[in-house]
Every structure is written in C-alpha cells, then in structure tokens.
C-alpha cells in the first residue's frame, strides 16, 4: 500500500515538473486555432487542423512572408465552448492578431468577445447566424443556408413536371435548424417547391418507417443538413428498400442532396454504394476533380506526410483555404508596410474584393470580403457521386440570386 502511494506521488510530481518546462519560442506572427481534434465532429476537425498546420508550414518553409514566419497555435477544445473560450483567452495573452475558430456553438458564444477585442475571425462554421450582430466574423464560404438554398434551387431548376415535393433531413440542433427557416422564406418568396416534412433525426438504427412515410406522401427529393454518419445510415436504408433514384428526379424514387458537412469522401466511405447519385453543394475544389488547386493540396499533403484519407478530405482543403486567407491578409499588410495589428488586418480583409479578391486555388470561386459582404466565396458548386467518386455537375453559381428578398 505504501509503495503504490509513493508511486502516485511520484507520478504527480513528474507531471507537475513538466508543466513548468513549457514556453513556446516567440515567433513573429501568431495565429490561433481552437477546434475539436478529439470528441464530437473530430472526424472533420482532425483533417482541418492538419490542413491549417501544413499550409502554415508551407508558408514558413517557402518564405512566402520573407524572413517572417507564422506560428500557428492549435489547441484541442473537444467541441466544448468553455475550453474554446479558455484557449481564446490564452491565444490573446500570447499576442494573437488573427483567429481561426471551428465550432458553431463557440463562434456564436464568443461573438461579443470578438467585437470587443476587434480581432478578425475566420471560423470553420458556416452558420449564417455568425454574421448577425457581429462585425469581425468572416465566413470562409457560403453559409449553410446558402448551400441548402443552392440545392433547393438546383432541384427547382432541374425538376421536370410540376412542383417538386421536398423533405428536409436535419441535425437536431441549431446547426441543423438554421437553414430550414431560410429555405421556408425562399419558398414564400416564390421558390416553386413544396416542403412536405422536416425530419430531425436521432441516433436512428433504422429509417425504414420514415422513408416509407415520405414515399407515401410523394416526396421526391430529400435535402440534408447534418453530418455524414446519419446521412450514410439514411441512404443505406434507402438503397436496401430500392428507393434511390438512378438519375436525378426519377419518379417514385428519392434523390438525396446535402450541404457542406453532409458529403465528402467520408460519406462514400460510410455509405458505400448507397452514396451513388448523392448531390452535394460546397464551395471547395475536390481532389476527385483534378485541377491546379487540388494538385497543390495533394502535393502539400504528400510533402508533410499525410495519409491518403486526410489528403483527399474536403476538410483538409478547407483548412488550407482559411490558412491561405490569413496568410494573404498578413502579406498584403506587410506589402503596404503596415504594422501587423488587428485593425490593419481588419482593414486588409475588408478590402479583399473586386480587383483585390483572393483567387485561392482551392475554392470554386474567388474569395471576396468587404464590410458588408462577410462571406468569402460567393459561388457554389454542385457535385454528384458517380461510380464512387464526386464529380462536378454544371458550373459554379450564386445561390439565392433570384431570391435576394428578405436577406
């Protein structure tokens, strides 16, 4: 008994000693990122963190900022707002001038702190609520509402015969519910679509009853705003029942569409052949559609030793994109010989429009910001799964262009 008590004390002492041996070398520009590397949504967070980290390493290694380097401070907050706030305070203490956040909950919770600290923030959360009552939050791309609206418009444009009947399949939280309101408003403003039912899922093991109910009500399209796992279960059940449409809008079948976080290679991984014919709206370039941006991303991943799954994940691409935005803003401020302070960075980022738009290679359109337009990429691209790979369908378009009524 005594021996083990001594061991316990020794362990505690060792841990206490290690806590004092930590002081980060002070590099020049500090950018903070607090996200969920473990815990909920970590399957999206882990590649995102790697994307951010790798791009900053690329910047430092290739001296894109001359002799200055960027030091990313990446912390795991396990999706808990309390820990995010603590990390944020710590980053501020370390002298951070630009912040990258992750979860919707914490971005909304820290809105006022961002305004009080006057620090520009680019979160991974594309919730439209982030833009209300805030001046310093800049979404990287279109919001979830835009993406859901985009797929809704795609449905209306390509549906043949009458008014399409649509059901919505959403996550049981504010993340899922936010776009529903905006889609309903668009329908009232004239989008020719009928929303038959809005289903909030739980940890369903079996969606058969729900699918049969939707079929009996004549639903042809299911818009999803949730994460990949429930969508995978849903489409697998639909495949088993033989309900998946083999071409868009096939009669008496269901065509599944989804916003940014529903898709990606993880969906194909989880759902297998059931993901065939899934339509996905996002503003990022995918590695399955080779181009200059995707080659860059793949090379980056290979250079820093990331496995294939990470390299092909759209979250990795998203991470590199926000890192690009941060780097670009700092680069422009430096070029104008301005000091790197929050106000100057804010001025630079709001000037990023028109001729100054950032043509990031990883997105489908240019990233534009101004004091009134705080969504980076305004264009959206629809992809669909063909033979197990996401392929682009049509050209990038601006969602809600015809319905700029009650925005």
């Amino acid at each position, binding site marked *: 008994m005594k021996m083990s008590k001594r061991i316990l004390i020794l362990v505690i002492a060792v841990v206490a000693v290690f806590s004092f041996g930590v002081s980060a070398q002070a590099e020049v520009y500090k950018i903070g990122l607090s996200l969920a*590397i*473990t815990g*909920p949504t*970590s*399957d999206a967070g*882990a590649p995102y963190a790697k994307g951010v980290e790798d791009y900053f390493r690329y910047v430092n290694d290739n001296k894109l900022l001359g002799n200055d380097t960027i030091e990313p401070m990446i912390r795991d907050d396990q999706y808990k707002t309390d820990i995010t706030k603590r990390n944020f305070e710590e980053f501020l203490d370390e002298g951070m001038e630009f912040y990258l956040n992750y979860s919707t909950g914490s971005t909304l919770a820290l809105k006022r702190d961002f305004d009080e600290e006057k620090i520009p923030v680019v979160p991974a959360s594309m919730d439209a609520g982030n833009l209300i009552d805030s001046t310093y939050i800049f979404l990287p791309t279109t919001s979830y509402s835009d993406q859901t609206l985009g797929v809704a418009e795609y449905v209306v444009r390509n549906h043949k015969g009458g008014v399409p009947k649509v059901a919505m399949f959403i996550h*049981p939280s504010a993340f899922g519910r936010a776009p529903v309101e905006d889609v309903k408003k668009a329908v009232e403003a004239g989008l020719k679509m009928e929303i038959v*039912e809005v*289903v*909030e899922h*739980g*940890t*369903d*093991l*079996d969606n*058969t*009853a*729900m699918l*049969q*109910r939707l079929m*009996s009500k004549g639903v042809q399209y299911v818009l999803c705003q949730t994460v*990949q*796992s429930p969508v*995978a*279960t849903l489409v697998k*059940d639909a*495949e*088993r*029942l*033989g309900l998946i449409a083999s071409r868009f809008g096939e009669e008496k079948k269901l065509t599944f569409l989804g916003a940014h976080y529903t898709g990606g290679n*993880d969906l194909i*991984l*989880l*759902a*297998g*052949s059931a993901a065939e014919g899934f339509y996905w709206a996002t503003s990022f370039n995918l590695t399955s559609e080779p181009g200059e941006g995707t080659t860059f991303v793949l090379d980056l991943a290979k250079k820093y030793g990331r496995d294939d*799954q990470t390299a092909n994940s759209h979250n990795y691409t998203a991470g590199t994109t926000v890192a690009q935005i941060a780097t670009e803003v700092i680069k422009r401020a430096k070029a104008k010989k301005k000091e790197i302070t929050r106000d100057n960075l804010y001025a630079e980022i709001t000037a990023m429009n028109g001729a100054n738009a950032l043509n990031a290679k990883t997105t489908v359109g240019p990233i534009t910001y101004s004091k009134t337009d705080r969504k980076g990429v305004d264009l959206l691209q629809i992809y669909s799964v063909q033979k197990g790979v996401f392929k682009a369908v049509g050209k990038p378009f601006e969602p809600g262009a015809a319905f700029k009524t009650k925005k």
Partner: protein
Amino acid sequence: MSYFLQLVVSGIVVGSIYALSGLGFVLIYKSSRVLNIAHGQIIATGAFITYALTVWVGIPLYISFFVSMVLTFFLAMSVERIFLRRLIGEPIISVIMVTIGLMSILDGIIYLTPFGGYNYSFPDFFPKTPINMGPVSISWTQMVGVIVTFTLIFLFTWFFKKSTVGISMRAVSDDQLASMSIGISVPHVFGLAWAMAGLSAAAAGGIIGNITGLNFETLHAFGIIVFPVVILGGLDSIIGAVVAGIIMGLIQQFASGYLDGKWGLSGTAEVLPYIILLIILLFKPHGLFGTHEIERV
C-alpha cells in the same frame, strides 16, 4: 396498416440490438452487483476489433466475429482483474466511479488508435437486397442481428440454468458468503461474468458496426441507452433485458413514426426512453422481471 407492421418489425429488430447491448450489462450486475458504466466503450472496442480483423488481417467476417468475441472475452476479464478486484466490498459509489474512470480510460485508449477520429465502414458482406415479408422489409444485416441476439440469449439462459459454472454464478449473486463456504471461487466467478459480458458486447458491437458504420461518437450513445433498457427489464434478469430491449425498440419506432411532426414535436424517440425510465423507477423500480429486494430491519 403496412406502415404499422413495418414499425413493429423495425422495432423488434432495433430492440433486439438493444437487448444484446443490455445483456452484458445484466450479466455483470447479476453476478457482482456492479453497474458497468463503461459498457458502451466495450461494445465499441468489440466493433473495432472485428473491423481490424476483417479488414486489416483479412479474415472473413463470420470468423472474425467469433475471434473478436474471444478477444473481448479476455480483454474484459483482464479489466476486471486489474481494476475491480481491489474494490470488492467497497461502497457502491466507489465502484460506480471506478467504472466511470474506466470509461474515460477506454475513451483515451480508443482515441490513441485511428478508430477514435476516423470513420470506417465494414465491407459489404451480405447481399444488398432486402428481405421482403409481405409489406414489410428488413435488411440481411438486421436479420442476422436478430438471429445472433436470440441465439446468444438462448445459450446464456441454458448456461445459467443447466451448466455447473452457470449455477455457481447464480449462487454467488445470491449470497457470496454462502457460496464461498461451499467452495466456489468468488473472484473467478466475477472474472467470468465480466468476460461473458465482453463476449456479448463484442457481438453487439459487430452488428451495430455493420448497420451504422464505425463512428466512435455514434457508438458512444449505446452505452447510455442501455440504462433504460435494463432498468425496465430488471437489473438482474436476462429475460428482462430481452423483453425490455424489444419494448424499448418498439416504443422508439412508434414515437418517431407517429409522434414526430405532430404538435411541433421532434426527436421524441430520444427522450422517451428516459421518461419511461423515470416512470418505471417510481412505480416498479425493480423492473418487469427483476427480483424484488426486501429490506429487513
């Protein structure tokens, strides 16, 4: 009408998976009076081991299913040996807290492996076509799940009723001192109970993994849903776990089938098990089949 039948069949299918998850829980409580809060993590471990054996080592699914059951058997037994052996005789709060600590430890270990962060899905093993029984349809995986559940339950019930080891386990759960005086090794019985719980947990994990894909967060939730099921059935009754599992599955399906959407309700299937749990606790705390504890002064 066919909608109702579909709900019933889905309920039975989902319920038997709940029953299988609850089975291990009941086994542990029955012999050692320990509430195993870490059961969800053991289910997840079983699922991951099955996946690793199937995909990384290359064994066909039905063999790796059994191998993973054996491996989890030993894993659970060693867990009991290392952590819980010291706590025989301590107050119940300590034992519950140790299982909670165990839950965190297993969490951490799973995050150390790639399973914690990434999603995986089993390769297709069964034919994709559904089994149609009239207006109702279920998938092959679900059918296999039901069959495995009932087989295991049948085996366990036979084991407890007829085999010597099983009877000695029942003796230990009844009165530890008396069974020690007969010569039954109580620590061995505890280890065996945990090992058998690990076995059924691996089976449950394998089936759940096939249906929902391997996402650690989803598997987490099963550790919590198991509570209403076993309380409803009675903490120390195997038959209770089965019956309660199926009832819970049915109630969830009916709730999401009929209640969701009306009066603005949604997600009722999530909360209904806990409301039922509360009601059962207030009126019949020992559940449908549990043994009634009578306190004597």
